Every structure is written in C-alpha cells, then in structure tokens.
C-alpha cells in the first residue's frame, strides 16, 4: 500500500519533471533541474533506496549543474566568441 508521504513526494517529482521540460531558458532550467534532482533524492529515500539517493544527490546537485553551466556560458557567446568575432 502507498502512504501519504510517498504520494506527496511523487506529486512533487511529477510537477518538477514537467517544469524542467516546460522551461525553455536553459539557465533557469538548470535551477529547476537541481530542484527536480532533489525531489528524486527524497523520493528514493522514501522508497527505501539509500544508495540510489546518495548517487542521485551527488549527480543532480554537483555534476549536472557544473556541466550545464559551463556549457551555457561557453555557448552564450560571451568572451571567446566576441573575441573571435572582433
């Protein structure tokens, strides 16, 4: 049987997942993706999967933002491309 806490966390996961997809601006999406990762961490903890929760915590809050932010800055056209364009 599913208890209330699991239902609430699942709802958060679903809403945040759709929010990540609906968010077109990539910088804002990084933030929402971080929250979505956090909601997944809570979900895995509530579903008694601590190993996966640790894994998701490190991945979604350290690795994803780092890679995404570096790429967004690199492709935003500030810096290097300006120099190339001059």
């Amino acid at each position: 049987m599913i208890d209330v806490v699991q239902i609430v966390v699942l709802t958060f996961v679903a809403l945040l997942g759709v929010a990540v997809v609906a968010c077109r601006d990539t910088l804002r999406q990084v933030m929402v993706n971080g929250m979505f990762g956090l909601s997944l961490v809570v979900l895995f903890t509530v579903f008694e999967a601590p190993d996966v929760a640790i894994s998701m915590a490190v991945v979604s809050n350290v690795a994803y933002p780092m890679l995404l932010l570096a790429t967004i800055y690199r492709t935003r056209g500030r810096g290097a491309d300006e120099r190339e364009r001059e």
Partner: protein
Amino acid sequence: MSVYPYVVAGVLFLAGLYGVVSSRNYIHAAVCLTVMQSGTYVALIALGAVSGGQAPITKGAQPGKPMADPVVQALTLTDVVVSVVALALMLALAQQSRRRGGTLDPDELARVRG
C-alpha cells in the same frame, strides 16, 4: 491508488520525449533526455519498493520489517552515474554545434546542413 508511482514514471518518460520533440536548443534537449531517464529510474525503484519496508542494508536493520528489492537499486545506482557522462558527451556535441554550426537550434542546424 497503488499505481500512482508507475503513472508518474510514465508522465516523466513522456514529458522528456515531448521536450525533445519541441526543443529549440540542444542543451534543453539534453536535459529533457535526463528527465526521460529519470522516468525509468522512478519506474525501476517503484517496482522494488515494499510497503512498510526498510532499506536492504542488514547492518542496523530492524528485524521483522521486509526489505526493499536490492537488484533494482543495483541497476539504478550505476545507471545514474552513467547518465552524467552521457550528458557530458551530449553537451560536448552541443558546444561544437554552437561553435561550428553557429547555432544550438536543431531546426536551424539542419537547415545549415542542407
């Protein structure tokens, strides 16, 4: 009510797919792929969860409570870490798309390609 976790997994899977179809930016598409991947994680872990259970760690486990499914956790555990490097590869390609093709928009890049 007890199918709700699987419904959420399906929603995440389809949301990710919709994100890729409607994406205007390869970085956005890459993140939508990770959302789609999270759909499979939620499905896998929900399959393994046990009501009123505890984590499959025998050190400090309360006797009498059933344990969750360790196999699904083992599969998901490694897959989550692999998704980081898959995303890294995708973002490396996205950077090259911006630098070489001048755009991150899939439709525009296709037009450039002709």
